[in-house]
């Protein structure tokens, strides 16, 4: 990560893309923890990486923890772009009551680690299982909707998802437990 960062500040496009691919998912998840609004978070991530690339020359080449830098930067963009009518005192205080830097860093580390593991776990599923998990959870479709989309019986959809979850659970549940204990 530190090397990628250094290369980014020297204008290396490949390093930028590697950073993007490595951190997009945990950043996305982190954003949703601040505010449960997918479209807003996607816009904010877009701004983050646009700014990152545009300001690459003026970024410090040596940062101790570039990834925390990215997460904090994202948080700032989100807070700036919250809908005006909703960024009232209530929601602001909610975000301002922050854990210590260390606790935040642990949370971020674990988010990154969880997504790395999720990726590995998903990779172990068959293509069909992965697609069904995508539809059911990432896209929040019902069994009935998936059954129509994939031309399979509801029972089949259920079975495929059940087996996929079993496999996912085996891969990384311990990790999951940890991270969510930290993040309430």
């Amino acid at each position: 990560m530190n090397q990628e960062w250094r290369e980014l500040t020297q204008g290396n496009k490949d390093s930028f893309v590697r950073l993007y691919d490595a951190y997009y998912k945990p950043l996305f998840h982190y954003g949703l923890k601040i505010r449960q609004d997918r479209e807003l978070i996607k816009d904010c991530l877009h701004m983050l990486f646009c700014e990152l690339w545009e300001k690459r020359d003026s970024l410090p080449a040596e940062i101790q923890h570039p990834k925390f830098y990215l997460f904090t930067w994202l948080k700032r963009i989100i807070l700036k772009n919250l809908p005006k009518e909703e960024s009232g005192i209530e929601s602001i205080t909610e975000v301002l009551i922050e854990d210590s830097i260390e606790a935040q860093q642990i949370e971020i580390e674990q988010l990154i680690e969880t997504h790395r593991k999720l990726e590995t776990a998903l990779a172990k599923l068959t293509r069909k299982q992965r697609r069904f998990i995508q539809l059911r959870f990432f896209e929040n479709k019902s069994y009935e909707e998936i059954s129509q989309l994939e031309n399979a019986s509801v029972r089949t959809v259920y079975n495929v998802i059940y087996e996929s979850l079993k496999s996912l659970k085996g891969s990384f549940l311990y990790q999951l437990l940890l991270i969510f204990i930290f993040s309430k």
Partner: protein
Amino acid sequence: MQEKGNTPPRVEELISDSSFVNYCLGTNEADCTFWQTWVAENPAQRPIIAEAKNLVILLRDTPSEGELTDARERLFRTLGFDKQKVGKTKLSAVYRWMAAAALLLCCGIASLYIARQAEVKPIPMAAQSWIKKLAPAGKIMHIRLTDGSLVDLAAGSTLRYPTLFKDSARVVALEGDAKFAVSHNTSKPFVIQTADLDIRVLGTTFHVQSFQTDRYARVALFEGRVQVEKEDRSYVIVPGQVLVYDKQKSSFETMQFDPEEEQKRIEGMLIFNNASYAEVGQRLAHKYGIKFMPDPNIDMAFSGRISNESVEEVIEKLNFTTAYHFYLKSNTLIAKRK
């Protein structure tokens, strides 16, 4: 909801149960109540419930493949990265699709009416800050929208767009001509509002000509799919077809078009078909940066094509083919009966 006996439920069992997922996501009140009661009655199962809930939330807060692809494409487009170079292998299919979906939309041209009184549609979004861009005469203005879409705004045309696309659709307002390369985003359709038509796309490339002074609005589709709406009427056209809207008759017609000719239109060729003085004058003013005053007393129906001619050559052409004498005075187009 399934009956849970004394045997502890397994995580995969819980998550496969839709009612449990509804409980985790808080999407159904009855399910929430059921599971809250269940957890209260089975305190020993709390750890397993927590595990299952965590997995559901993790899965919900992970971007889907579609979202990842859209976001990546949008970013690289905005930054002007070479697609081939930075695209992962799985993305190359998307880019091929993008290229295929290049669609060309041509609305437009000339009118017998001084359609100036036609009102510009109100934009249905308050609480948004909007940017307005007007391309100068004889120039094409290149605009990059915040979603990564590119717009080549033709001379004399106006585009209004929000600083950030916050709503469920990406809505922009156009008066005049523009070529759009819309970045793909299935969850946020792109809508172009013109004085007469609304054009709805998911992500593709097209050309709009929609000056209010024009008699016809045209939508020509090369690849992909586009939906054109006018009040309660809606048309979907297939590649190779052009949808022509006649403002005078308020009628639509679909026909085949010639791709080469369509390309010339994009590059700025003017095609007049029984065009009025207002239509011809307005178009020439945009193309050549001259001034023009509409005059309802001038009754002409000019047909012809103008591509790379100088303004003098165009005036000569008008003199030959109409009952009027045209000339430029202080950079203003004047017409007098012969």
